[in-house]
């Protein structure tokens, strides 16, 4: 039946009624989950670095500029992570609505 209509194009993975499938990302793409995990790692890393720069500053081994930059980086990474997380939540909620 589908063949007669034609023009649907190739579908990836097994299809058919009753088969629950998870959409597989293409090679080279990452899942949303992985992107969020990477950004959390990066926030954690940058905050550790900011801690270290502050400690150096108190010992006179880093400048005030270096401290400011380190903390700003950590802040921006955190804000980016929040945005990613919020987009994920929005996308999830939209999918939930579609299922209904």
């Amino acid at each position, binding site marked *: 039946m589908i063949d007669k209509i034609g023009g649907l194009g190739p579908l990836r993975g097994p299809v058919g009624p009753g088969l629950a499938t998870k959409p597989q990302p293409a090679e080279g793409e990452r899942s949303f989950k992985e992107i969020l995990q990477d950004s*959390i790692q990066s*926030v*954690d890393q940058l*905050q550790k670095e*900011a*801690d270290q720069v*502050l*400690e150096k*500053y*108190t*010992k006179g081994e880093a400048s*005030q500029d270096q*401290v*400011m930059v380190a*903390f*700003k980086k*950590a*802040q921006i990474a*955190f*804000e980016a992570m*929040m*945005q990613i997380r*919020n987009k994920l939540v929005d996308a999830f909620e939209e999918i939930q609505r579609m299922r209904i």
Partner: protein
Amino acid sequence: MNRLFNGASLSASEAMLIFASNRQKVIAGNIANVDTAGYKTQDLSESDFKRQLDNLFSSKGKPVVIRSGPAEDAGAVKPNGNNVDLDIEMAKMARNTALHSTAAAILAQQFTLLRQAIAGRVL
């Protein structure tokens, strides 16, 4: 998200802010008394402060009392018994101001991040 916020940076910045604020008062006293007969330059103990910061950065909770007393970097004693060196105090005040503004900036930023986490969005 096991460690979202800089526990060490937050408490270290608070300690820096308090130390800088207290030290400013002592320096103001030295400058006001630059010509007072017999007056000896006062200061807060930098080594006590360093020990406090070391404790905070290595997460040892022990509180450290920062003592005040005769300054280690006082000037020469003048004929009237006073040993305040205005150049030394002005330089110390400049360093202290930088410490205060750094700590204040970090604290302001850390609190903003905390509020964003609570609100669940970027403020």
